[in-house]
């Protein structure tokens, strides 16, 4: 393995200055479940790895406010799924985050890492977009807020520049009623990347939003604004017709995990399942 420097800043500013010095040849390190693997495979040619786990002004806690919850960049997925506020307000996020890797991975991997790695198959991302999450991106000069739906540019590419860091995720508490669900297809249970994944959200205006993962270079967000998909008594043929029109906006490819046709076929069957669960959660709140 090529040698690199291991750096351990203690302030956000120091971390950002280091990133600026090294540019593309440095990567920030949180859980490392993707980064260290890539380094070991020789897929990351780096001069420095900047470990952010000792940066005091990057939070390792989940703050529950009156209008949103904020997840610091050092929060690992195991802590996220155990958090009572996350469980109460964002059950689909718990479902999604619980599928990432294995317990060993989730004890180490962070929500922000899952986002910033920008894998089209990232399991937490479709659900976070359905919940209208945004991230705070910090540079040496300014901090900016970016809606997650606008964050991804392509596989491994985001709007976060080489000398910027995502320091937190903000998820607004959904207006009631709101129902969301997550679904995925994998070849085996545990430690497998999603062949496809998706999240569905139904909001108070009966708008149903689907976000599909692993079927395009970035997550694909589509909505049914007619209010029909939110109805539990919609005839199956009409439901499938709308679902197909949403799925039509995806662009799956064939790769090691599945062929294009299989992905397209499973989008519909998992889409039905996820819609059903989102409806159930919606009507639980609607009463």
């Amino acid at each position: 393995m090529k040698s690199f420097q291991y750096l351990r800043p203690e302030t956000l500013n120091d971390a950002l200055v280091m990133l600026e010095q090294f540019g593309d040849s440095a990567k920030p390190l949180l859980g490392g479940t993707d980064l260290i693997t890539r380094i070991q495979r020789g897929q990351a040619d780096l001069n420095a790895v900047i470990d952010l786990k000792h940066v005091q002004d990057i939070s390792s806690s989940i703050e529950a406010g009156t209008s949103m919850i904020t997840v610091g960049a050092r929060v690992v997925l195991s802590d996220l799924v155990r958090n009572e506020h996350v469980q109460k307000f964002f059950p689909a996020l718990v479902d999604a985050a619980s599928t990432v890797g294995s317990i060993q991975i989730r004890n180490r991997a962070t929500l922000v890492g899952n986002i910033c790695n920008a894998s089209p198959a990232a399991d937490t991302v479709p659900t976070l977009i359905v919940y209208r999450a945004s991230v705070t991106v910090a540079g040496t000069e300014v901090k900016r807020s970016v809606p997650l739906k606008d964050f991804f540019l392509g596989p491994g590419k985001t709007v976060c520049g080489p000398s910027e860091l995502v320091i937190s995720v903000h998820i607004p508490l959904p207006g009631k009623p709101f129902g969301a669900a997550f679904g995925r297809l994998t070849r085996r249970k545990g430690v497998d990347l999603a062949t496809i994944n998706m999240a569905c959200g139904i909001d108070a205006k009966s708008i149903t939003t689907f976000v599909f993962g692993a079927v395009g270079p970035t997550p694909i967000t589509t909505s049914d604004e007619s209010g029909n998909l939110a109805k539990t008594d919609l005839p199956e043929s009409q439901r499938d017709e709308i679902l197909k029109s949403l799925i039509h906006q995806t662009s799956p490819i064939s790769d090691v995990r599945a062929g294009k046709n299989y992905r397209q076929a499973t989008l519909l069957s998992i889409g039905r399942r996820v819609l059903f669960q989102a409806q159930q959660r919606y009507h639980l709140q609607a009463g």
Partner: protein
Amino acid sequence: MPEKKIQISITVNGERHDLEVAAHETLLQLLRDQLDLTGTKKCCGEGECGACTVIMDGHTVNSCIILAAEADGSEVLTIEGLSEKGKPSALQTAFLDKGAVQCGFCTPGMIMAAHYLLMNNPNPTVDEIKEGLAGNLCRCTGYKKIVEAVRTVAEDGE
């Protein structure tokens, strides 16, 4: 450019070590090559199979994808630290009694994952055991006897 070594301090199985590590050295390499604790296995090397599972600061991790430098200041428990006064722990004994070991390569990681599961959930159901061990691959046993072994040491184990 000669590689700069990093000074770290790590407590493994209750014993503190002050060591020098290279930036690219993993926790797994440190355990096996520097401390000669070869119970922890290297298999896939990318966090998929769980053979390298150890407990770091109270949580199971894949030691193959953690830099040794990241483990500075941490407390690590390996399979060697599970035995009590040189005798296998109840969980280790259950693995032997139930025939949950065949080639044995996955066993240390499997036992560390099961130990962690029982720490957090002393009475797991079969499904909870399967979920708790989902990050550990075994290519010999078919898992049945492993699950049985863990059930044996559960609080109401039969």
